């Protein structure tokens, strides 16, 4: 069927079940926006900066478990997406970013608003395309979605020259995408599953080390079954939070640089480490030679390059986490050599030891009566939302306090820029999350520094009547860098004090949102309650203790057992 390319483009999105896209118009995509204006199925959310469009699409994808979509114009529109794309790449989030491009005849001529965005994003996309021939348009869009969502998910960029989008194309009926060069491995090798299970059964001190792959693969039920059937304690990476209930007695919370004392001690002393959809990032391992030094390491990952990249793995399983965990659960059930009651019994001393560590150094902070502690704010947010809110974060101390003290019980409820660490991620992400789940409470836990990196999105939130809540943990510092300067640079606070800041309450009001402030601990609860009861965008400005640090902390490059504690 012949139709305009722009029409075919929208039909392709509908075919992928896309109902919301985030974008910003411009000359090179004006034809697309002309059609989008009339679309009844696709809602376009106009952001105020293209970076925000990508973060919003990223969080939308995480909440829904589908592919997020952003649409921007050529040149600066395209370059503004790079940070968002790189963040989605690090965190393996499925998004497709469509960029306008100058007409094919002008490509390479340094035309107005021309940039080689395919070249620029080559190292930070899973794959990218420049559509030069209108005949390729439909197939390319289908391939882009296929690549984004399958295997290890990731961002795909499609560059759309203006003349291609003004052409007529043939829209063909969809059929399953079959690519000769791209066939991810979903099913685990049965021999490896057997080896892994036989290793687990010999373990006296096992630990499950769980990353974002468990969430990407929707494998939380299988993971919970494995952990509970044998009583294996679970620690999670930043990206894995919510993959296992944070309040479960087997949960040890997060590991790594700002992980719990007991998580890091358990990993350092375990005899079998079962890594599931995690990638042994430096913030997790600390000094590699001291990471799980006594353990046999089992590693389940859909991406073969993740295996033995940083840490040598004894039993690799290249597979989708859900399939691999299901196969292991099945093996354990079928196999008579597995007496699950005896296994649980065998792990009792190990769980006792972890309890001892937990009692020695629980997650905590020094409480004060006259000044608000950031951890207290996060605890109150947990309490007053029943632990059910979707939490997004910016990057820095706010991110770590959220990770430590919110105790995520559900998957797809925590959105943070884990790998790239993007300040300015949280607020646009909250907008994306709220659109993906209109009935949920969505809170961006922010710092006074990072909220200013995408503060312009207040207009987007307001225009779309999104009741997103922003909790600014305001210490008038770029707090995490300040903490490093305090600890390792003789308190030389170079460029970290943020004494000049907007009045966030007035700023909220300027946008027609609601601004609330708490300066004393007693004001925290009323402010949160009022915010939750308000059907509008709300900024909560919590003026917190200025030089509070995030603890535990493993100094960079040190062994994870060498923690600085509260």
């Amino acid at each position: 069927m012949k139709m305009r390319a722009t029409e075919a483009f929208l039909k392709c999105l509908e075919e992928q079940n896309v109902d919301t896209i985030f974008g910003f118009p411009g000359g090179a995509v004006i034809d697309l926006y002309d059609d989008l204006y009339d679309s009844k199925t696709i809602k376009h959310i106009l952001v105020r900066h293209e970076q925000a469009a990508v973060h919003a699409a990223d969080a939308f994808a995480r909440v829904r478990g589908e592919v997020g979509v952003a649409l921007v114009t050529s040149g600066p529109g395209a370059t503004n997406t790079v940070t968002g794309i790189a963040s989605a790449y690090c965190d393996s989030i499925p998004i497709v970013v469509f960029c306008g491009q100058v007409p094919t005849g002008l490509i390479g001529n340094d035309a107005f608003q021309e940039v080689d965005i395919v070249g620029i994003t080559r190292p930070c996309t899973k794959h990218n395309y420049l559509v030069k021939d209108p005949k390729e348009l439909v197939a390319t869009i289908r391939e882009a979605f296929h690549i984004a969502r399958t295997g290890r998910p990731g961002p795909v960029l499609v560059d759309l020259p203006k003349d291609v989008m003004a052409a007529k194309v043939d829209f063909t009926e969809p059929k399953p995408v079959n690519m000769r060069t791209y066939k991810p491995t979903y099913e685990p090798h049965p021999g490896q599953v057997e080896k892994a299970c036989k290793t687990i059964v010999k373990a006296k001190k096992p630990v499950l080390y769980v990353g974002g792959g468990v969430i990407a693969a929707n494998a939380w039920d299988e993971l919970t079954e494995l952990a509970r059937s044998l009583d294996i304690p679970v620690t999670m990476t930043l990206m894995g939070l919510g993959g296992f209930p944070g309040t479960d007695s087997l949960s040890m919370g997060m590991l790594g640089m700002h992980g719990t004392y007991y998580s890091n001690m358990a990993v350092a002393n375990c005899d079998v480490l079962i890594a599931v959809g995690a990638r042994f990032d430096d913030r997790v391992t600390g000094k590699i030679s001291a990471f799980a030094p006594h353990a046999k390491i089992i590693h389940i990952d859909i991406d073969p390059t993740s295996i033995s990249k940083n840490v040598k793995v004894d039993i690799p399983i290249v597979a989708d986490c859900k399939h691999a965990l299901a196969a292991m659960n099945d093996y354990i059930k079928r196999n008579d050599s597995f007496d699950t009651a005896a296994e649980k019994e065998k792990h009792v001393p190990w769980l006792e030891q972890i309890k001892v560590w937990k009692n020695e150094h629980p997650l905590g902070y020094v409480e004060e009566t006259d000044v608000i502690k950031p951890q207290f704010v996060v605890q109150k947010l947990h309490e007053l939302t029943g632990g059910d809110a979707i939490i997004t974060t910016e990057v820095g101390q706010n991110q770590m306090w959220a990770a430590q003290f919110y105790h995520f019980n559900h998957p797809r409820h925590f959105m943070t820029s884990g790998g790239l660490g993007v300040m300015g991620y949280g607020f646009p992400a909250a907008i994306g999350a709220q659109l993906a789940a209109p009935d949920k409470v969505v809170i961006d836990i922010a710092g006074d520094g990072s909220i200013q990196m995408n503060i312009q999105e207040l207009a987007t939130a307001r225009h779309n009547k999104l009741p997103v809540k922003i909790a600014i943990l305001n210490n008038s510092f770029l707090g995490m860098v300040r903490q490093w300067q305090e600890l390792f640079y003789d308190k030389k606070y170079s460029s970290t004090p943020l004494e000049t800041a907007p009045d966030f309450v007035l700023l909220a009001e300027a946008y027609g949102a609601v601004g609330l402030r708490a300066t004393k601990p007693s004001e925290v609860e009323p402010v949160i309650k009022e915010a939750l009861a308000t059907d509008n965008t709300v900024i909560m400005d919590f003026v917190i203790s200025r030089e509070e640090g995030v603890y535990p902390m493993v100094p960079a490059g040190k062994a994870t057992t060498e923690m600085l504690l509260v």
Partner: protein
Amino acid sequence: MKHKHTISVLLQNKPGVLSRVTGLFSGRGFNIESLSVSPTLQEKDVSCLTLVTSGEDAIIEQITKQLHKLIDVIKVTDISEKEYVEREMALVRVKAEPSTRAEILRIVDIFRGRVVDVSPKSFAVEVTGTGDKVKAMIDLLRPVGIQEIIRTGTIAMTRASKKY
């Protein structure tokens, strides 16, 4: 232990595919000693890229996995894990005075090279072989006076089974 590896990569002949490969090497700090790429002609729109790299076993494992992860890559073979033949070629222009012409021809003959261009003052010589052989000929020609050297990267092919 650091070893030299010759890796053969079959890839789809799409725009930008070479920069995906070289970008992977530069971005991850892997080393490329030589690289040679051309359409195979055996199959439409498929090219074969041969690259020589060196590194510890874990690095080589990462290189082959990362190459395989590129969407346009069809197949990656670490040829040096098998029995293989490798060739490279060089074109060398040497100063050719009446007094040295016979010497040049003798050296070229020993290496089974050929003279491919003659001028009153120079010969251009072609030689193929392993990298060592090509280098050996260049070293012998050097005293005569080399004006220009152009070398290809290595290409390589696994040996077929010797069984009947």
